[in-house]
């Protein structure tokens, strides 16, 4: 009977022939590199399965050596000729080979080497060696098959063992019968990974699964791709802010809630999806709650759309009833029993009255564990603390304890850590050592760490809460909810029975709220309201939220958006508002981007906007390292923090392009978290694309062709980068590292952290972030932008500050008048609503506050007093800031100093004057006293003209943008706004900000604010002053008194100690232009000046060139407009077109 069809056969030709002359079998050495190369040449060519020099090739030889050893052990195997067995009656069994040979167990056959390539081989190698090699290759392939199949089988076993595996059919069946299904199951039941796969297996092909966090999108897409055996296929993908792996073949996509909302904004009926999975609905994120509301409205219009809500087993009935008692499939979790130990903290005599957390109760738990559980019994500890300060307090103490016992590896875990540092919690502790992970609530649901046996729950959480009255965000400490306490406890029972130490009393637990406060009830809602307006979902006050937000929060948000100019008085989107609603950025940032692109400052503004949108790149603690501080100094800008960040980013880009590999070290040396700079680069690119997409920035030309040599070089470089990236990805699946115990302070570190200098594997030396950065960004373009940024002129800088100031307005703070007499650290500032705010320690002005102090002026008013209150100066400054954050004190974050008078005249929503305009009150809280009436009036008039001019330029740009959107983006050539006009405006603005007028600046007291206005007047002797400030006849202001000149300027409404009739007093005055000599009131004088036929149309004092007359231009912008919807013809400005068109939406 024929032997198995191994091609090699066992025929006579394989019989060991006599050794050839050259080959002495005794001397044969498989380890000889030359021998190996001969075989590799023959078997492992470029086109072969295993390539010469590849990792696979190395693996083969390792396998080969092992096989040789194994076979040597077995050489004594007897050739069993067991012919006694009868021939079997079943045909398949009848012809089994009698003599056993392991080869018969292999279902593969391997052919000989490529004879074309291996002519030399025949002459040099004995056939039995070739046969031996082929045997080994056969075993190697079989081994590979067994290994891969083993993985496949293991994967399926694990999937089947998940609690949810028993419920897959029920979920699919319920989904067939209902439009909405709630799947409720606790962490570890497998819902997030399995439900998408059940849908895939059931044949669905347009599935979206939303996640609250970007990181979860990536990891779930990877996991689901792996489990559904399409790890290297394209049916499972993810889409997040900067990255997408989605393609036409993608059947299921994981994406963030925010991104899905953007998709709904573009296509409200979501035609691209069959099934929508909304995961983690119980976390009650703002966007998730909004999405649920949108879906509830959408479902009747899309009866074919299926929705699966996935939740922990928290408050399930809320979701079910919100969707008309949607059916619930509840999956039990898989938890081992957990013992709860209540250890309430007795009121202990604290060492000091400081707010620092007492670490002793936590240390006692560590001690208790050491005493009770032998170190060989593995199991790590997870400690839940309220915030970063608490983590560092316990970290310090626990590390001291750990250095004594050598039994603990203490690791912090919070969101401000770099990804690499966060990853350390997954590393393995050496034998006899437990990990002690000190975490914020990030480990409650977001990060799952295996091997946790003990949990310590402080019962506290720090959360941002928004105070709508004070308009500030507070980071406050709260008791957690019962639901959170249960989540925390559950972390101890994932891999075995566990213990949860609660550092509070059972009665405390009973008093906890059942669920955490949903985000919508504790954050600022302006972004949400703006998005709602942009999506035309109607009045936010009546939107059917699953749980409505507090009405005051909504009102505050609406008011804020009106303040910011995004909503008009009827709460409709203004043109700039509708553009802002399309930009997925903070309102303030959006405004900066729009204004910056108008002034051709897009490149620097892009960088600054990106820098202000990510967490500070400056590492905590580097502040106390003098080396870091010194190294950072050259990057600091005394204009303000955004400019320091701007310098950091630009210099970093230069470092990257010049000495490419050094950027990591460059950052470390300066205490900069490089990860944040990568984020900035990504965000900057995204902002740029947004501006291009919205017609605000001409699309960059495809990179210059260059000569063929440089093209070739570039292509080579990119290929090399891709290769590096691929290698990195193949080597991924991060091998868990073993933690090392060490005494120094920065906690336990894995070997990886030893910096680029330590000995590392070749693969680890590749800075993969750098590779990805260079693949994603055009470094040359970035570098060009960075070097042009370093050459910003003074004028450009001043304009940039105006752009920032206008974008950030009304976020202003005034330095306290006594600051110049205070210590650096005691400088305080006041905003309209918050007194006594301080600077963040990283703020440039915290280290050099003197740049904010007003220099004394020779002018009158300075009587030697040490304060700035009544000091006359032309150089008063205000701080404009990005955010006000309250922790233990209110902090101003990211400040820029701006000239006070000019900024207030240009930006304030409300400007009130007295009769001679020497006294001005901006926004009802800042008072300016100018020395003389004449310059006051001139400045005021100039600011009015500039504001109008600026407004009209902005209008033109927005109109251009709207037109550009309608006309299918085909007129990319035309610049948004007339360059000449912008240049003129820029020039005038610069002249205006440079104007030198002495004035005093102070914050009004509460009492003064109450008695600010004269109030409505009975005798309204309306001054008939045609063309005053270039406007129509002022009308009496109904509440303040005086006369409303524009929507922001009210003339002569301030009460004053001076003569009530002062504004009626006329003095002789000669017009410098027409030589008219007449008695005038100040108002009449201004009126004459602005209409004097001889007067040059000049700007502020010192202006030379004629400015265009923007006010009359306003009507010139009107164009005939035919509305398709109402079939009428109009004469509209572009803004009016937008406003009109909105009526039809």
């Amino acid at each position, binding site marked *: 009977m024929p032997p198995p069809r191994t091609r090699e056969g066992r025929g006579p030709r394989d019989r060991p022939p006599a050794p050839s002359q050259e080959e002495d079998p005794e001397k044969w050495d498989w380890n000889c590199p030359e021998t190996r190369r001969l075989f590799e040449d023959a078997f492992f060519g470029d086109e*072969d399965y295993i390539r010469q020099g590849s990792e696979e090739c190395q693996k083969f030889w390792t396998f080969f050596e092992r096989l040789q050893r194994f076979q040597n052990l077995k050489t004594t195997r007897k050739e069993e000729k067991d012919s006694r067995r009868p021939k079997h009656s079943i045909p398949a069994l009848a012809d089994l080979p*009698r003599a*056993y040979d392991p080869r018969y167990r292999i*279902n593969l*056959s*391997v052919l000989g080497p490529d004879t074309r390539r291996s002519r030399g081989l025949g002459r040099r190698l004995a056939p039995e060696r070739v046969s031996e090699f082929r045997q080994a290759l056969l075993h190697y392939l079989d081994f590979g098959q067994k290994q891969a199949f083993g993985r496949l089988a293991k994967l399926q076993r694990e999937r*089947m063992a998940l609690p949810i595996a028993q419920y897959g059919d029920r979920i699919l069946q319920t989904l067939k019968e209902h439009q909405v299904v709630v799947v409720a199951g606790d962490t570890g039941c497998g819902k997030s990974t399995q439900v998408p796969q059940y849908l895939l297996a059931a044949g669905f092909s347009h599935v979206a699964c939303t996640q609250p966090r970007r990181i979860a999108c990536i990891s779930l897409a990877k996991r689901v791709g792996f489990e559904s055996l*399409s790890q290297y296929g394209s049916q499972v993908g993810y889409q997040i802010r900067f990255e997408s792996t989605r393609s036409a073949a993608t059947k299921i996509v994981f994406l963030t809630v925010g991104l899905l909302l953007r998709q709904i904004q573009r296509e409200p009926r979501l035609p691209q999806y069959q099934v929508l999975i909304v995961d983690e609905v119980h976390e009650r994120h703002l966007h998730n709650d909004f999405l649920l509301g949108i879906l509830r409205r959408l479902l009747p219009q899309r009866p074919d759309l299926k929705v699966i809500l996935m939740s922990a087993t928290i408050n399930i009935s809320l979701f079910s009833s919100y969707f008309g008692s949607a059916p619930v499939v509840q999956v039990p979790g898989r938890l081992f029993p957990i013992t709860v130990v209540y250890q309430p903290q007795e009121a202990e005599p604290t060492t000091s009255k400081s707010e620092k957390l007492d670490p002793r109760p936590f240390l006692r738990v560590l001690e208790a564990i050491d005493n009770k559980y032998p170190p060989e019994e593995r199991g790590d500890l997870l400690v839940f603390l309220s915030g970063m300060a608490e983590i560092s307090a316990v970290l310090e103490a626990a590390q001291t304890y750990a250095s004594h016992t050598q039994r603990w590896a203490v690791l912090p875990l919070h969101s401000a850590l770099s990804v690499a540092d966060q990853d350390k919690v997954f590393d393995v502790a050496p034998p006899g050592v437990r990990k002690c992970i000190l975490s914020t609530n990030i480990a409650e649901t977001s990060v799952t760490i295996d091997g946790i046996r003990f949990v310590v729950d402080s019962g506290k959480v720090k959360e941002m809460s928004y105070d709508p009255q004070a308009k500030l965000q507070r980071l406050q400490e709260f008791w957690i909810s019962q639901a959170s306490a249960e989540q925390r406890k559950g972390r101890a029972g994932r891999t075995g029975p566990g213990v949860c130490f609660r550092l509070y009393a059972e009665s405390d637990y009973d008093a906890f709220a059942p669920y955490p406060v949903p985000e919508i009830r504790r954050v600022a809602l302006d972004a949400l309201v703006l998005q709602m307006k942009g999506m035309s979902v109607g009045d936010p006050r009546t939107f059917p939220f699953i749980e409505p937000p507090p009405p005051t929060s909504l009102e505050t948000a609406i008011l804020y958006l009106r303040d910011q100019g995004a909503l008009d008085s009827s709460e409709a989107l203004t043109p700039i508002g509708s553009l802002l609603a399309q930009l997925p950025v903070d309102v303030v940032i959006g405004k900066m981007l729009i204004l910056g692109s108008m002034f051709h400052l897009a490149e620097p503004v892009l960088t600054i906007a990106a820098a202000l949108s990510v967490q500070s790149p400056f590492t905590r603690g580097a502040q106390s390292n003098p080396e870091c501080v010194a190294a950072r100094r050259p990057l600091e800008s005394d204009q303000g923090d955004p400019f320091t960040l701007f310098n950091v980013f630009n210099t970093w880009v230069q470092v990257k392009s010049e000495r490419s590999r050094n950027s990591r070290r460059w950052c470390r040396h300066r205490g900069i978290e490089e990860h944040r700079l990568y984020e900035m680069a990504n965000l900057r690119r995204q902002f740029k694309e947004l501006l291009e997409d919205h017609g605000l920035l001409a699309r960059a030309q495809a990179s210059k062709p260059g000569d063929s040599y440089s093209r070739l070089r570039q292509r080579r470089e990119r290929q090399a980068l891709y290769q590096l990236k691929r290698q990195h990805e193949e080597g991924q699946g991060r091998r868990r590292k073993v933690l090392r115990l060490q005494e120094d302070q920065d906690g336990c570190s894995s070997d990886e952290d030893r910096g680029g200098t330590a000995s590392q594997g070749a693969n680890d030396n590749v800075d993969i972030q750098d590779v990805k950065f260079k693949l994603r960004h055009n470094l040359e373009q970035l570098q060009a932008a960075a070097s042009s940024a370093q050459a910003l002129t003074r004028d450009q800088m001043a304009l940039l500050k105006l752009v920032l100031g206008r974008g950030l307005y009304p976020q202003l703070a005034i330095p306290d008048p006594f600051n110049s007499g205070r210590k650096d650290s005691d400088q305080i500032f006041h905003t309209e609503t918050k007194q006594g705010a301080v600077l963040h320690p990283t703020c440039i002005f915290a280290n050099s506050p003197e740049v904010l102090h007003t220099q004394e002026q020779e002018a009158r008013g300075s009587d030697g007093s040490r304060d700035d209150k009544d000091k006359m100066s032309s150089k008063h400054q205000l701080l404009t800031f990005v955010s006000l954050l309250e922790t233990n004190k209110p902090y101003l974050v990211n400040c820029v100093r701006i000239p006070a008078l000019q900024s207030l005249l240009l930006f304030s929503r409300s400007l009130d004057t007295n009769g001679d305009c020497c006294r001005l009150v901006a926004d009802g809280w800042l008072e300016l006293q100018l020395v003389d009436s004449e310059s006051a009036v001139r400045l005021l008039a100039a600011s009015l003209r500039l504001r109008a001019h600026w407004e009209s330029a902005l209008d033109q740009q927005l109109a251009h943008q709207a037109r550009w959107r309608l006309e299918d983006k085909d007129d990319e050539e035309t610049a948004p706004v007339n360059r000449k006009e912008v240049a003129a405006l820029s020039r005038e603005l610069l002249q205006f900000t440079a104007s030198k007028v002495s004035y005093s600046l102070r914050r009004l007291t509460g009492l003064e604010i109450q008695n600010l206005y004269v109030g409505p007047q009975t005798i309204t002797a309306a001054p008939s002053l045609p063309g005053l400030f270039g406007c129509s006849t002022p009308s009496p202001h109904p509440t303040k008194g005086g006369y409303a000149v524009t929507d922001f300027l009210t003339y002569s409404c301030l009460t004053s100690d001076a003569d009530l009739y002062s504004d009626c007093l006329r003095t002789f005055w000669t017009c410098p232009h027409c030589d008219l000599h007449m008695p005038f009131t100040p108002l009449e004088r201004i009126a004459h000046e602005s209409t004097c036929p001889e007067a040059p149309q000049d700007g502020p004092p010192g202006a030379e060139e004629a400015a265009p007359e923007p006010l009359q231009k306003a009507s010139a912008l009107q164009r005939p407009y035919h509305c398709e919807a109402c079939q009428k013809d109009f004469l509209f400005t572009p803004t009016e077109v937008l406003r009109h068109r909105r009526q039809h939406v």
Partner: protein
Amino acid sequence: MWGALGPVGDMPCLLTLQMECEAERRPLGVFECQLCALTAPYSYVGQQPPGTKSVVGLGHSAHWHHFLPCSLLEESYVMRDPFTPDKDRFLILGSRCSSCGRLVCVGPECSLFYSKRFCLPCVRENIDAFPQEIQQDLEKRKVPSKRPASQPGSRT
């Protein structure tokens, strides 16, 4: 002398081209082991899966593929190896028992190969037809934790 077949003309190139197309193709169906209910999509059934070649020294035309000069000794259900990015790697899922015809996976708890594929129930029934090495090997294996094939949906 080494190759089982001598050099051949152009025909095999055509063959490899066909295989290439096969490799790109969607799964043909879902393989399910009748003993353990393991399921996986398969993309090929036969003895010459995509990524292999039956002839030595050809295939130079397709530089982007890396062929393995090998073939299978049984009609197998095969998928692209899902654990490697290399598109030319295959993974044998299973085949029919040559005695009873049951479709079984290659897992050691379901079947074994001894010059042919046998499902473990058949091997146990006819254990004396196999050499001692197989018998010993079988004793070492633990009794399979059987998932009855009559409940194919037990996974979901």
